């Protein structure tokens, strides 16, 4: 069973042209057990993306460390799949070749690759689009492919950095259900960064709220909604209570963040 331990993790960006250094993330502690779905919620500039990028190995911490199964994370690796907010499919590869990218890098034989790709094409509902280029897909379909591409590697953690931020509301709702469905079936550790309160509650088992400038964890709110969840749960009293509570938490931070600018 995988476990992610974040110990005293901090990140300070050096000042630009003699300016003051920016503290993006104050020393932070967090432990995420296997199969946990943690959403990280906060206003822009609270360091939530920085936290995720350090876990992915794309950025280096100034202090502290991140341990995955007792091993310190130093650089990116296939055990941590990532889905970005911007569309990062390789435009010269078809949908199926994009999904197979990590498998090819592992040196997996073509036949085995084909089976895995086909199963994920099916899971994210992209049947019939295997041979399409990313340019020919809608934003929602591109992000589905990106999720499939990250999952095909069978990572220990799936990291998502506002993956549905650029999608319209209806598509976003469908994508949340799709992701949640996959997680309910596959049980994987998921870290999901968002600034959308409803999204954070709907998909998460725990919501970590962060405060801005300097970024730090403000509270951890468990979401005790039953699984499997459907979109109708968004109108339940328990959901509304959580939304009201988190709205208050985030609102005060957003006001502070706004003043700091």
């Amino acid at each position, binding site marked *: 069973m995988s476990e992610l331990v974040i110990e005293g993790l901090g990140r300070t960006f050096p000042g630009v042209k003699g300016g003051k250094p920016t503290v993006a993330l104050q020393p932070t502690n967090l432990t995420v057990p296997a199969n946990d779905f943690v959403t990280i919620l906060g206003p822009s500039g609270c360091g939530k993306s920085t936290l995720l990028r350090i876990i992915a190995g794309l950025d280096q911490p100034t202090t502290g460390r991140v341990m995955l199964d007792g091993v310190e994370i130093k650089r*990116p690796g*296939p055990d941590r799949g990532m889905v970005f907010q911007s569309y990062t499919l390789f435009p010269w590869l078809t949908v199926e070749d994009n999904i197979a990218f990590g498998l090819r890098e592992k040196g997996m034989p073509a036949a085995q690759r084909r089976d895995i790709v086909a199963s994920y094409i099916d899971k994210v509902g992209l049947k019939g689009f295997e041979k399409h280029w990313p340019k020919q897909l809608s934003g929602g379909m591109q992000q589905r492919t990106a999720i499939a591409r*990250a999952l095909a590697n069978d990572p220990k953690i799936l990291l998502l950095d506002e993956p549905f931020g650029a999608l319209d509301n209806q598509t976003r709702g469908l994508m949340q259900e799709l992701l949640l469905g996959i997680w309910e079936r596959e049980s994987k550790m998921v870290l999901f960064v968002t600034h959308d309160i409803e999204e954070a509650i709907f998909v998460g088992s725990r919501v970590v709220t962060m405060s801005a400038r300097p970024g730090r964890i403000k509270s951890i709110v468990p979401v005790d909604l039953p699984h499997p969840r459907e979109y109708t749960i968004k109108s339940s009293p328990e959901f509304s209570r959580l939304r009201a509570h988190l709205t208050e938490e985030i609102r005060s931070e957003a006001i502070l963040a706004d003043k700091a600018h």
Partner: protein
Amino acid sequence: MIRPFQPVQPQARAMLGIGFFVLFVGVWSIFTFGGYVPRHFLVDPVTMLGDGWYLLTQRNFLYDIGMTVWRVVGGFTIAAAIGVPIGIAMGTYKPIEALLEPFVSFARYLPASAFVPLLILWAGIGEAQKLSVIFLGVFFQIVLMVAGSVAATRRDLVEAAYTLGASDSGVVRRVLLPSSAPDIAEILRLVLGWAWTYVIVAELIGASSGIGYMIINSQALMATGQIIFGIIVIGLIGLISDFLFKSVNRWLFAWRFA
């Protein structure tokens, strides 16, 4: 009504493109047949075609064209074969860029035509000298432009590849190269056009064959019709090679035009 970026029908596009050639020849005809320009300065289109026919049938001009095409393709291919890998290395690895970029930027401004006397001294008046002029003219441009295109690879694609488990060499082979390949092809198409300028410069001095050699010979004979025919032949070959290059690029990089 012309409005910004409004597309034009394929038929109208072809008509407009051909129309301008017709207009060009028309204006030329008015000036020459109308007697506004003396014949020994500028011949009329019909005389030019006659001179061209004479060159092709009596003076074995096809051999000259063949020689010039061979030199352009040869010099350009050598420059591309060495320049593209160096450009990719510069765009990928910052220490290599730091080492070579200042020198290449300097060398890029050295006029290849000014090297002709030196190259004759070093390489004689044979084919090596012709290829060297073209090489000098295009090599540094290729290196710099390829380096720029590789360096401009989207960072988020590189990061995505790393999170999928790609090694450093995997990122070069499977992200940097395919992502900048269409740009590199475009760069080569552009630079091939410049190679045509340098081949004529090389053939104007110390050559015994080629389109440039014919042009400098015709100057001595005041045969302006032949000179213009030679220039137009170069233009036509350029047009054809450009078209071929574009078609191959569209076929190779279909994902860009999807």
